[in-house]
């Protein structure tokens, strides 16, 4: 029982890590980035290429991949999302959906259908574990991922609260026109926010590749878990995302105890229950999407 809870909480840390960028982008720009999972998989493949061809440990590879992901985020906002946002709320969602298809199939063409993993390149870290009292063993990687998730979410919170750029991003999220009138470049603020979001996606991709396997079409399930964690936690709230990830993971691990099919089923079940309760609480679908940040 306690073991299940501990493993569930640690898995929740991973979900919170992949949900961090999604929920950040939603809270700041009101964009649901459907390419989120595919971009995480892209980051994982980039790390794989660096490890296989240039013998760079994935941890060293991150020094290259994270800035690259940030640049991708900046350009994505500048050249795709900025324009899409002017055409209404639905268009950015469609644009990112299209982008996810492009990325998935591009990866498939380049790397084929084989299942890959980064676990071969991180030594014993993929199976090393720490013994806790009560005969409970936790994976070092799982603990590391959880700590990283807390650090990323806490970092985002501190950045938004206490730095001039964080304030500028929040101001732009609330009222882009007035942000311009006080001297903020709203396009720059959203592009920086998008760069930060994709920086965290790079970290999520690394965690994905190290803890298990991935293939070219793995993005969709990552997006789904990220989305569920973000919604359970109250889309857009930083610490809510961590709670959401943990709730989702606990439902899954307990579901798996009941039946092998229970893992996904219980997760989706909790997500749907929370979603409908939230929609009911704020008075319908419209209210849900028009809530202030």
């Amino acid at each position, binding site marked *: 029982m306690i073991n299940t809870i501990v493993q569930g909480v640690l898995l929740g840390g991973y979900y919170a890590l992949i949900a961090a960028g999604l929920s950040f982008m939603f809270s700041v720009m009101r964009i649901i980035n459907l390419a989120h999972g595919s971009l995480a998989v892209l980051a994982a493949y980039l790390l794989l290429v660096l490890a296989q061809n240039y013998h760079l440990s994935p941890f060293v590879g991150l020094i290259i991949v994270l800035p690259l992901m940030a640049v991708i985020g900046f350009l994505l906002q500048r050249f795709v999302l900025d324009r899409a946002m002017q055409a209404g709320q639905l268009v950015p969602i469609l644009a990112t959906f299209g982008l996810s298809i492009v990325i998935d199939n591009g990866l498939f063409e380049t790397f084929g259908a084989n299942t890959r993993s980064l676990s071969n390149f991180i030594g014993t870290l993929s199976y090393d574990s720490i013994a806790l009292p009560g005969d409970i063993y936790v994976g070092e990687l799982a603990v590391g991922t959880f700590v990283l998730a807390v650090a990323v979410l806490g970092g985002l919170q501190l950045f938004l609260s206490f730095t*001039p750029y964080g*304030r*500028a991003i*929040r*101001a732009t999220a*609330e*009222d882009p*026109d*007035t*942000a*311009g*009138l*006080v*001297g*903020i*470049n*709203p396009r720059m603020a959203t592009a920086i926010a998008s760069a930060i979001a994709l920086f965290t996606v790079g970290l999520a991709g690394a965690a994905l590749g190290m803890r298990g396997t991935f293939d070219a079409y793995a993005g969709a399930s990552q997006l789904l878990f990220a989305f569920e964690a973000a919604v359970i936690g109250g889309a857009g709230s930083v610490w809510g995302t961590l709670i959401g990830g943990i709730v989702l993971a606990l439902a899954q691990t307990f579901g798996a105890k009941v039946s092998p099919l229970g893992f996904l089923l219980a997760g989706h079940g909790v997500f749907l229950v929370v979603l409908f309760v939230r929609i009911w609480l704020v008075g319908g679908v419209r209210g849900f999407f028009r809530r*202030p*940040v």
Partner: protein
Amino acid sequence: MSALAVNSLNLHHGLLHAVRDLSLNVAEGEIVALVGANGAGKTTLLRAIAGAHRPTSGTITYGGADITHRAAHRRVNMGIALVPEGRRLFTQMTVEENLLLGRMSGRPGTWTVDKVLETFPNLTARRTARAATLSGGEQQATAIGRALMSNPSLLLLDELSLGLSPIAVDRLYESLRALMQSGTTILLVEQDLGRAMQVATRVICMLEGHVVLEAPTANLAREQVTDAYFGLAQHRVPA
């Protein structure tokens, strides 16, 4: 030399022709009051000068540079700051955060959060309060403070008294007196004609998108302005 020059400016709100072929100049250090009935185009004109409304035609120059197509945030860098109608504070943020946002332009100058709080003492106790919880007078003071934090050389004030009690308005103008004597160029929209003529060196009266009267306050009678205000004056520009 005129700091701000607007030449044959046309502004539209969709099909509505809000400002028609309007020209005006504001010299450095001048305080100019824009008066006129609702819908005369005053707010639209201020927003166009600040860069929040794209002109259909005409030019706006500031300090000799053509800024007609310059983005709003770049105009703040040049020293143009607008206190918008309805305050438009960032309601989820605190007073202090709203003020700090005014510093994003990075213009050098003497304004700091502490100096703003000194100018508007009623804000001191509300420094960490969220803007949404402020009274109208406190919100307006915060909005002015936010504009001042960018150390503007041209301050555009849009209907400071809107929705405020007469006492709050008195207190606001009292706080602004030092600023108005400091040589900052100010273009303000004010519904209270008495107040406008009292603080401004020149009054411009607008009617249906045109300038119908423009005169220094020193040799201007209140009746002349009210006539122009209601379109009774002889020298009305034909549409």
